[in-house]
């Protein structure tokens, strides 16, 4: 029986964000935007969706009078990501 791919993660930008955050303890919004090559508006929307799903924590603060947004993956997000990768591997093994 195939596991259904998590629709929250099975999206290009959200998956890219989660893949970045799984590899680090925390990352600034600007770093994620630069590495995913996305627009600030779209990235904000997708991060908000991940936040609503409980997959990421978002901390907003100020640094040198400029807003600074930091994101980090949650335990729930790590579990969801691991499940997603396992499901992907299942699909790929059948496709061979």
């Amino acid at each position, binding site marked *: 029986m195939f596991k259904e791919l998590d629709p929250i993660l099975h999206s290009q*930008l959200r*998956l890219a964000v989660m*893949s970045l955050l799984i590899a*680090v303890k925390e*990352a600034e919004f600007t770093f994620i935007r630069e*590495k995913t*090559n996305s627009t600030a508006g*779209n990235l904000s929307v997708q991060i908000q969706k991940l936040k609503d799903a409980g997959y990421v924590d978002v901390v907003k603060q100020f640094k040198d009078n400029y807003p600074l947004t930091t994101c980090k993956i949650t335990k729930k997000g790590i579990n969801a990501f691991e499940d997603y990768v396992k499901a992907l591997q299942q699909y790929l093994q059948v496709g061979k």
Partner: protein
Amino acid sequence: MPLLLYFNTMTMAEEKNLTEQESLQLITEMIHKVKGSFHESGTSAILWGSVVGFCGLFSFVKAHFDFSTGWFDVWFLTLIAIVPQVIISIKESRQRKILTYEESAMNAVWLVFGISIFALAFYNNVVPGVSENFYAKDGIELLQRNKATGEISAFHPFIFSASSIFLILYAIPTLVTGLARKFKPMIIGGIICYLLFIVSCFVSFQYDMLLQGIAGIINWLIPGLILRNMFLKGKAC
């Protein structure tokens, strides 16, 4: 690799349905991107390598030529160096856009090392006096006798070859960092530091100071300069 090129050049401006292969490719690419994002500047290593190197060599020269600096102990510089270290740490944390698990663990290792060094300095300064007091409470006085003259005088306890223990402690975080980051200069530095420790067990205090200075230079100053060079090259790319 066409797929990789595709991901590199696209702007993720809109939702896109991914195939399973594309998903795995994207995950791999993103994790790979993070790997090349952190570069140690080497500033802290240069600072502490310079300070410990200078203090060790100065102490050796002072003992060798037998001159006094009065109340000022050159090792107080290690306390003063905490100020620029705090400034460097704040500055680097402000410039940092990501915090990796590895960096976080390394920071913890060096913080614990810093605390341990000062704890060891405290131990070396306090334990002899406290030991003497304990003996005194039990009515015991420690004495030493000069074999040549037969003269007997009070013996004030001290930690034998205390600087050898410092060398062991210097080696720990250096070798841990070198092994964790696969950074050869620190691996070599850490191993040499253990060798210096062995040597220090057999030589006098004066040469212990020389070994401390060498340890500071080999452990931190040289790797720090190499890191700095790599950091500047990385920035230029």
